[in-house]
C-alpha cells in the first residue's frame, strides 16, 4: 500500500509573511479569518500569527481567506496552470492524487474564488477537480468550502465563457490522460513545455516557508494579482461582474483629519497619500477589503463596503 492513503500536506505548503498579517500590523485588530476556518486548530493569534507545525496538514483553507497574503501557498500557481493547459481535458489534483492528475496543489482547499476564476479563464474545455481521495482525508473539511465557492461564482456569472469546472468525487468520474505525444500535437506541446520551463526557471525556487516584507512595504496578495491579471484580459461586461463580486469602496466622513494613518496601515497600498493633510486616494484594484483601515482609524471616519 502506498502512503497516498494517509498522505497530507504540512506547514511547508504555506508561505507565511507576518508583516502582512492584520493582527501583526495592528495589535487591536479583530481579524480571525484564518483561525476560524482552520479545521485543525493550528492557527494561534494571541501572541501574533503562529502556526503549530504539528497540527497543520496543509489544507490551505487559511490561504483562501487571508485577505492580505500573510498566509499564501508555497508553490507557483502559474506552473500549475501551465501544466494544466498542456492537455485538453486536464485534471487538477492534490498530494494524494498525484498519479492521476495533470497539475497539483498541495490541497484543493487552497483554490480561492480568485484562483477558480483565473483557472476558468485561462483554460478551455473541461477541468476536473480530482476529489476522489477526499473522503477519509484529514483535510476533507475543505469540501463544503470549495463547493460553496464554485456555487457563488456560478451564481455571479463569473465562470461564464471559461472552461467548465467539475468536482469529481469518485474515481470513475475522472478521465485522466497523460500528455499526448502524437505527431500533430508534438510541436504544440514542445512549445508549451518550453514556456512552462521558462516559467519554472523565472519563478526560481521558493522552498522557504517564510517571507519577510518590511512592515512599511506594500504587497498585493497573489490572489489579487491573479484576479487583476484576469481582469485585464476580460471583456467590459465581465469586468463589471468581477467588480460587483470582488471589489470594495471606501468612504471618509467629515471627521477625517487627513492624518494618513490608514495609508500607512494598509497592507496592499490601496490607500495612497495625495498630500500631507487631505483625504487619501483610493485605488479600488489594490483593495482586498481586509478592513484594517476602518479598524485603525482613530476618528472613526473610514468606512469600507462592498461595491454591490
Amino acid at each position: 500500500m502506498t502512503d497516498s492513503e494517509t498522505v497530507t500536506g504540512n506547514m511547508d505548503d504555506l508561505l507565511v509573511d507576518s508583516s502582512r498579517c492584520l493582527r501583526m500590523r495592528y495589535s487591536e485588530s479583530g481579524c480571525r479569518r484564518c483561525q476560524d476556518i482552520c479545521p485543525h486548530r493550528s492557527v494561534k493569534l494571541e501572541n501574533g500569527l503562529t502556526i503549530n507545525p504539528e497540527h497543520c496538514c496543509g489544507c490551505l483553507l487559511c490561504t483562501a481567506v487571508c485577505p492580505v497574503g500573510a498566509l499564501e501557498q508555497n508553490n507557483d500557481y502559474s506552473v500549475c496552470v501551465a501544466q494544466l493547459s498542456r492537455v485538453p481535458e486536464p485534471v487538477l489534483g492534490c498530494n494524494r492524487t498525484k498519479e492521476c492528475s495533470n497539475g497539483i496543489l498541495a490541497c484543493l482547499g487552497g483554490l480561492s474564488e480568485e484562483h477558480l476564476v483565473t483557472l476558468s479563464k485561462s483554460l478551455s474545455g473541461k477541468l476536473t477537480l480530482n476529489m476522489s481521495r477526499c473522503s477519509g482525508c484529514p483535510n476533507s473539511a475543505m469540501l463544503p468550502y470549495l463547493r460553496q465557492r464554485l456555487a457563488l461564482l456560478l451564481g455571479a456569472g463569473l465562470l461564464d465563457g471559461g472552461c467548465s469546472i467539475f468536482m469529481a468525487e469518485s474515481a470513475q468520474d475522472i478521465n485522466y490522460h497523460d500528455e499526448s505525444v502524437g505527431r500533430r500535437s508534438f510541436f504544440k506541446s514542445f512549445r508549451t513545455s518550453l514556456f512552462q520551463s521558462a516559467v519554472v526557471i523565472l519563478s526560481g525556487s521558493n522552498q522557504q516557508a517564510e517571507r519577510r516584507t518590511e512592515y512599511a512595504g506594500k504587497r498585493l496578495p497573489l490572489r489579487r494579482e491573479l484576479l487583476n491579471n484576469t481582469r485585464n484580459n476580460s471583456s467590459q461586461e465581465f469586468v463589471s461582474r468581477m467588480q460587483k463580486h470582488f471589489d470594495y469602496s471606501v468612504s471618509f466622513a467629515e471627521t477625517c483629519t487627513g492624518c494618513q494613518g490608514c495609508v500607512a496601515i494598509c497592507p496592499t497600498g490601496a490607500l495612497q497619500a495625495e498630500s500631507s493633510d487631505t483625504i487619501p486616494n483610493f485605488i479600488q484594484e489594490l483593495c482586498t477589503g481586509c478592513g484594517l483601515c476602518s479598524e485603525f482609524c482613530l476618528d472613526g471616519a473610514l468606512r469600507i463596503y462592498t461595491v454591490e
Partner: protein
Amino acid sequence: MAKQYGMVIDLQKCVGCGACALACKTENNTQARANGQTFNWADFIYREEGKFPNPSYTAIPVLCNHCADAPCVKACPVKNKAMYKTADGITMHNDERCIGCRRCQKACPYSATDVIKDNAAYSVISCNNGTAAPHAASRDTTEMIKGCTASGAETAKAAGAVIPNQNKYAHPDYESIRKQGLVEKCIFCAHRVAKGEQPNCVAACPAKARIFGDVNDAASEPAKLLKKYKPMRLKEEKKTRPNVAYIRAFKGGGKV
C-alpha cells in the same frame, strides 16, 4: 534596580553653542528640515523673555526624553512594537517593523506632526512622510550652477555614500539612513553606547554640560548630580517619567 540610561544637562555649563546638535546630525546622518519635520534628534528651545532692563535669553537643549512610561511605545500599533523599551531603558525604534502611521509622533508630548503648523519649537520624533527618499539634496541631479558645479547626486556618488560624509554605523534595529515613510528619533546613540562610548552629543559638548549614564546606579555621574541638585524635567505633568533632566537653571530667566 534595572538599568535606566538617562542624561543630565547642566544649564549653567551649557552655552547653547549647538555642538551637540551638529554632532548628532553627523553621527546619525539626519536630513535637513522638510515638510514640517525637523529631523533634529538634538535640538534647542530658545526663549527670549522680558523687556529692557530685565531681558532674559534661555537656550535649553532638547532630545528624546526616553521616558520610563513612554506614550510613543503605548501608541505603536504593531505587534512586537516597532517603538519599544530596551532592557537598559532606551526608547528604541525598529525600522523594519515601523509602518509609518505616526501614532507615536501624535502621542509624544515632546513632538509635533508638523512643527510649522503647530508652531512648535522642536519635535523629538520626525517622520519622512515626503514622496522623495531621504536626503533629497544628495539625490538631486541638477547642477547648482549650470556647467560649473557638480550636482548633489554626483558628489554623493564620488564619495561612495548617499550623503558624502555619511557615517555608516551598524545597528540591528536601525539603518544609518532611515527609509522613506518611517519615523525616526534619538536612540541615545545605542550603537555607540553598546561599544562603551558616550552618545555623540555628550562626547562633542565642549562645556561638558551633558552627562550620560545609568541613572538607577547611585554611583554613576548623572545619579550623583540628580542627588546633589534639584532636577527639572520637561513637561513632568504629563507623567511620562522622562529620563532627561536639567540642573542648575539660571535664576535670572523665566521658568524652564
